């Protein structure tokens, strides 16, 4: 929805106007730069850590592994960790875009709407009560929790006049997140063995990632991304409002349903693998929108790439900020993301997308 520029803000760019990169050529060129940045983040994530390795060592580890310490660090610690970070980042960026598109809400994000917290709670419950230890075992619970939390938040937030306004949704999300977080900590405190395992996971950490998790994550993320890409044109139509979207041949309810399912798939799987990581899914679509404008075909790709870069960069930072200890990546994303969230709230144009 185009916002009419207010007289006093006529010089400001409206929310959904054209971004910095205006032509498709510059958007594609920019995407190449963004992909280069992502590759840089991937490289940094493999090279940097408590035990620094050189590029040559990484090369030998992949081509001619001898079983040395360095090889094992690269193959069994750094590479899976980077893969999970990459996949979770792509997933969160795409999920944030989907949520913002289907709720038409600038504060939409899987974290703000309590989806991540819901997934986290059900995963903890599944592990504590049913002793499920494999990613394939508990990821289904993550989907259930994510979907349930999202539905509750949306239901409460859309009560009353004006439907689901950004403020109402964000408040309902915060309340649900608080409750789910409290139950999660109650469960972990009651069961000391899970406490140890989840102390770091529950703030969002890539530290426990292994290749089984990375392999388990891949199909879900791929499926979610495929649905998201298929929906981009309908999301563009939806941005014009339901009536106009129907007129253009999109079916709003179907798009919302599919988009919501894809968001649950992406955010749920990412949370099951890496814990509830905040603010990445909220920030990335906004950054993408500022760069490439209001076309969701571009926003989705850019947002996924930006989110993955952010997450990997945050993870690298988390490794080096408190040497020799390690910070959880969720802490770093919150430190960076919370000020962005405050900026979004403060911005004059907190209107519906």
């Amino acid at each position, binding site marked *: 929805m185009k916002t009419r520029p207010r007289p006093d803000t006529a010089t400001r760019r409206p929310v959904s106007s054209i971004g910095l990169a205006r032509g498709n050529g510059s958007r594609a060129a920019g995407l190449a730069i963004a992909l280069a940045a992502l590759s840089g983040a991937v490289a940094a994530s493999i090279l940097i850590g408590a035990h620094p390795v050189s590029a040559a060592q990484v090369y030998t580890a992949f081509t001619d592994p001898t079983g040395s310490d360095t090889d094992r660090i690269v193959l069994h610690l750094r590479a899976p960790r980077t893969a999970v970070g990459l996949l979770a980042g792509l997933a969160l960026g795409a999920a944030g875009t989907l949520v913002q598109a289907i709720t038409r809400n600038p504060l939409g994000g899987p974290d703000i709407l309590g989806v991540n917290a819901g997934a986290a709670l059900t995963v903890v419950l599944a592990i504590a009560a049913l002793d499920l230890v494999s990613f394939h075992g508990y990821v289904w619970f993550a989907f259930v929790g994510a979907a349930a939390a999202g539905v509750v938040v949306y239901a409460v937030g859309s009560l009353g006049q004006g439907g689901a306004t950004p403020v109402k949704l964000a408040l309902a999300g915060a309340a649900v997140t608080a409750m789910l977080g409290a139950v999660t900590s109650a469960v972990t405190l009651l069961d000391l063995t899970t406490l140890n395992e989840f102390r770091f996971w529950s703030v969002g950490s890539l530290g426990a990632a292994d290749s089984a998790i990375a392999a388990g994550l891949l199909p879900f993320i791929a499926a979610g991304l495929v649905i998201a890409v298929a929906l981009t044109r309908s999301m563009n139509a939806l941005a014009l409002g339901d009536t106009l979207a129907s007129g253009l041949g999109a079916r709003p309810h179907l798009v919302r349903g599919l988009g919501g399912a894809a968001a649950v798939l992406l955010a749920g799987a990412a949370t099951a693998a890496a814990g509830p990581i905040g603010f990445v899914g909220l920030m990335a679509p906004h950054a993408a929108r500022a760069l490439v404008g209001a076309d969701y075909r571009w926003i989705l790709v850019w947002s996924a790439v930006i989110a993955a870069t952010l997450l990997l960069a945050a993870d690298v930072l988390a490794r080096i900020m408190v040497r020799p200890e390690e910070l959880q990546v969720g802490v770093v994303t919150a430190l960076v993301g919370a000020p962005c969230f*405050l900026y979004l709230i403060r911005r004059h144009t907190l209107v519906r997308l």
Partner: protein
Amino acid sequence: MAVHKTGPVRGDRYQVLPPDVRAVRAGGAALLLHVRALVLVCLFSAAALAAGVVSLGMGDYPVPLGEVVLALAGGGDPISAHVVTEMRLPRVASGAGVGAAFALAGAVFQRVVRNPLVSPDVIGINAGASAGAVLAITVLGGSTMFTVAGALIGAFASAALCYLVAYQGGVSGYRLVLVGIGVTALSSALTSYLLTRAELHDAQRASIWLTGSLANRSWSHAGVIAGALLVSVPVAVILARRLRLLELGDDMARTLGIGPDGARSALLGSGVVLAALATAAAGPIAFVALVAPQIVRRLLNESTAGLAASAACGAMLTVAADLAARSLFAPIELPVGVLTAVAGAPFLLVLLARANRIGRSG
């Protein structure tokens, strides 16, 4: 001393008092008594006392109720007396004090900002106080003095941050709440960062404290909270009458001789102090500040400030929640903050749903 009912008295003098209010006169002074509020205070205090006595008897060394009462009166078996008064009473006393302080802070905030969601736990003041206190614990070693100072500084810093970010030609309640969510996230990330940097021993201590726990309270914690109440309650009581005038609107308040900004800042300041010191004494016990004033508000008529009743209700809620947290999953003791959060968050959700349905929110 004479108690007057509402209505015309003494010839042509009329008392314009709300239905539940009696004026008690003694000599030249008059005191307004809110009968329902008084009844509520008594009921809540009695319930808090009952829960407290049960809590005093419970534990690894069970003490029968009769012995508890005897010990409180200063007699009884010396071992029981020691267990009750030296080991368990500080916990119950700090629980009651902390609950009262949180509830009072919440009542002040909700009344001043006129939004049921604006309480110190929702808008990030407790989280700020926690970050400050954890900084003090991990960097300066965490004597009571440092913890209290850290909590105060953190609370005022996050209150100032909330206000500055939310201020856009006035502060709307809902923007304040949204900003509070962001500030909370920021403060808790800072807290986690500090915990990771800390020595393992300090980190363990701090992380239990962070969920809001009354375990291992000593008289020094009870002292902190007593000090907070001593400083802030008089301020709140003196300014409580202005609350009602403030609610008439700034212009009307000015006409009636009150500087609205000054009164508001003083009230909010006392609220921040209460929340900060309560957090320093027992950690950020969630949602007591949100829930207690709301319960009281539903039981009293709208025009009554209900500060005393809120405080009593908060004390009751906290002591009862602590009792439940200790006994529900015995022998494991949950921190009381977990229980209040699990029970309080649905309440917040219901409040939100109500506010949404009657169309008062953003």
